[in-house]
């Protein structure tokens, strides 16, 4: 029994020969999708060809692939021509491809396109549906794998831009069976949290199959229907999924998504500071304009109007004064000198100050007397500290230059 045992090499060689001798396995065409494509430095290509249920290891030697006009990529649907055989060294069954043709549009792409057309017609991707992102979210929701580079990148950028931004992660399955369902559920849970004002949903790069959950109708619809704005960051920049079309904003990378969702705190602080500065400045300027107008009015009143109204304006001047003081209290240090000068001027303008300078106001029946030719027999002189009833002794016209 032992004497008749085969060596491994003998067995593998036997299987190789049987396969090689089977005309059904020689010079055949096989259709499938390229995956795990690995071009070696030797020029040989190694990859898998697969359909929804099965896969086969493939090799395409340099002499066969040299003349090929396209470079295969994972997810590409192709037809291979060659033969199936056994690689005796590892005992592995594989396909030796001698030619490769692109098989039009792959089946997944067909499904993708059909769904895209349908949703497009429904208006699910309309620009009008897109919601603006909040300037400052109260919290950011993150739906992605709980481990890996995507989360790390988002956290790093968020921290750099706004260190105290609240972040809420709902870890989700991002590929494989049930991924779309879990993503839908995760999105729903995060969107329900009141403070979450923006949500990033995404995953890292991968083959079209890896990204497929993001092309599934239920997830695409859930993103479009999400009550909070959603930013998608799926795969690499060159991968576009239907989730990207449905999202309010599409980011080329997870880092870019975080840049979109999280504002730069320093920038916001600067904006607030600039507005406060402008507020001070404009309030100051307005008050200066008002006081200039008051001064002008007061000057005219001194010539034409009764003392009562003079006092009214003096009161309003005091209000302006007060206002200037309150602005001053608003820590407008840089304007201190300007303010001091202005307040001095305002005080000098009150009627009391004018009277104190040696002027007197002549009134008759409450109206100011402005010319000597109409001077009554008896009138009132108003001084800064009181008034006197006086009688006219004599009057004559005189020119003042």
């Amino acid at each position, binding site marked *: 029994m032992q004497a008749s045992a085969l060596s491994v090499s003998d067995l593998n060689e036997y299987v190789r020969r049987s396969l090689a001798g089977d005309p059904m396995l020689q010079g055949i065409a096989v259709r499938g999708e390229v995956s795990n494509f690995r071009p070696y430095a030797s020029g040989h290509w190694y990859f898998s060809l697969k359909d929804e249920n099965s896969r086969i290891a493939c090799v395409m030697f340099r002499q066969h692939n040299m003349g090929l006009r396209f470079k295969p990529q994972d997810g590409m649907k192709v037809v291979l021509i060659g033969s199936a055989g056994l690689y005796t060294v590892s005992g592995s069954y594989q396909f030796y491809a001698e030619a490769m043709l692109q098989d039009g549009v792959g089946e997944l792409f067909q499904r993708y396109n059909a769904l895209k057309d349908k949703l497009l017609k429904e208006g699910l991707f309309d620009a009008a549906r897109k919601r603006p992102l*909040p*300037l400052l979210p109260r919290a950011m929701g993150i739906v992605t794998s709980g481990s890996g580079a995507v989360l790390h990148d988002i*956290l790093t950028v968020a921290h750099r831009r706004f260190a105290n931004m609240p*972040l*809420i992660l709902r870890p989700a399955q991002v590929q494989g069976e049930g991924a779309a369902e879990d993503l839908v559920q995760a999105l729903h849970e995060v969107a329900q949290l009141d403070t979450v004002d923006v949500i990033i949903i995404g995953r890292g790069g991968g083959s079209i199959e890896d990204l497929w959950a993001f092309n599934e109708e239920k997830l695409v619809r859930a993103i479009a229907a999400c009550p909070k704005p959603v930013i998608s960051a799926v795969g690499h920049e060159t991968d576009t999924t239907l989730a990207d079309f449905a999202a309010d904003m599409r980011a080329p990378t997870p880092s870019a998504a975080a840049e979109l969702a999280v504002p730069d705190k320093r920038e916001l602080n600067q904006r607030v500071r600039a507005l*406060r500065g402008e507020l001070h400045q404009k309030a100051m300027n*307005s008050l200066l304009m008002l006081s200039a*107008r008051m001064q002008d009015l007061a000057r005219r009143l001194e010539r034409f109007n009764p003392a009562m109204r003079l006092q009214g304006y003096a009161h309003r001047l005091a209000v302006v004064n007060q206002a200037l003081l309150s602005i001053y209290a608003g820590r407008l240090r840089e304007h201190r000198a300007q303010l001091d000068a202005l307040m001095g001027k305002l005080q000098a303008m009150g009627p009391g100050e004018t009277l104190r300078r040696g002027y007197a106001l002549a009134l008759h029946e409450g109206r100011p007397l402005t010319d000597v030719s109409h001077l009554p027999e008896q009138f009132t002189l108003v001084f800064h500290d009181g008034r006197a009833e006086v009688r006219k002794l004599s009057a004559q016209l005189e020119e003042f230059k």
Partner: protein
Amino acid sequence: MTQKKTDLGFEAKLEALEALVNQMEEGGLPLEKLLQAYEQGIKISQDLTRDLDAAQGKLMILKDGSLKPAEDEDGA
């Protein structure tokens, strides 16, 4: 604009402040309105600065419907 100020989001407050500043064109407002606008503006700007620092920046994990702080700070 003055009612329910606490309910306004950061963005709405920032816009309100911008509107106040724009409204305050030189000499355009009567004195009382000017002072009102100024005081309101200062208040909003203080609010805004407070808003920026109010948040408690932490990573929380949502699992089985409840929120828990992440085990590791930052990192992954």
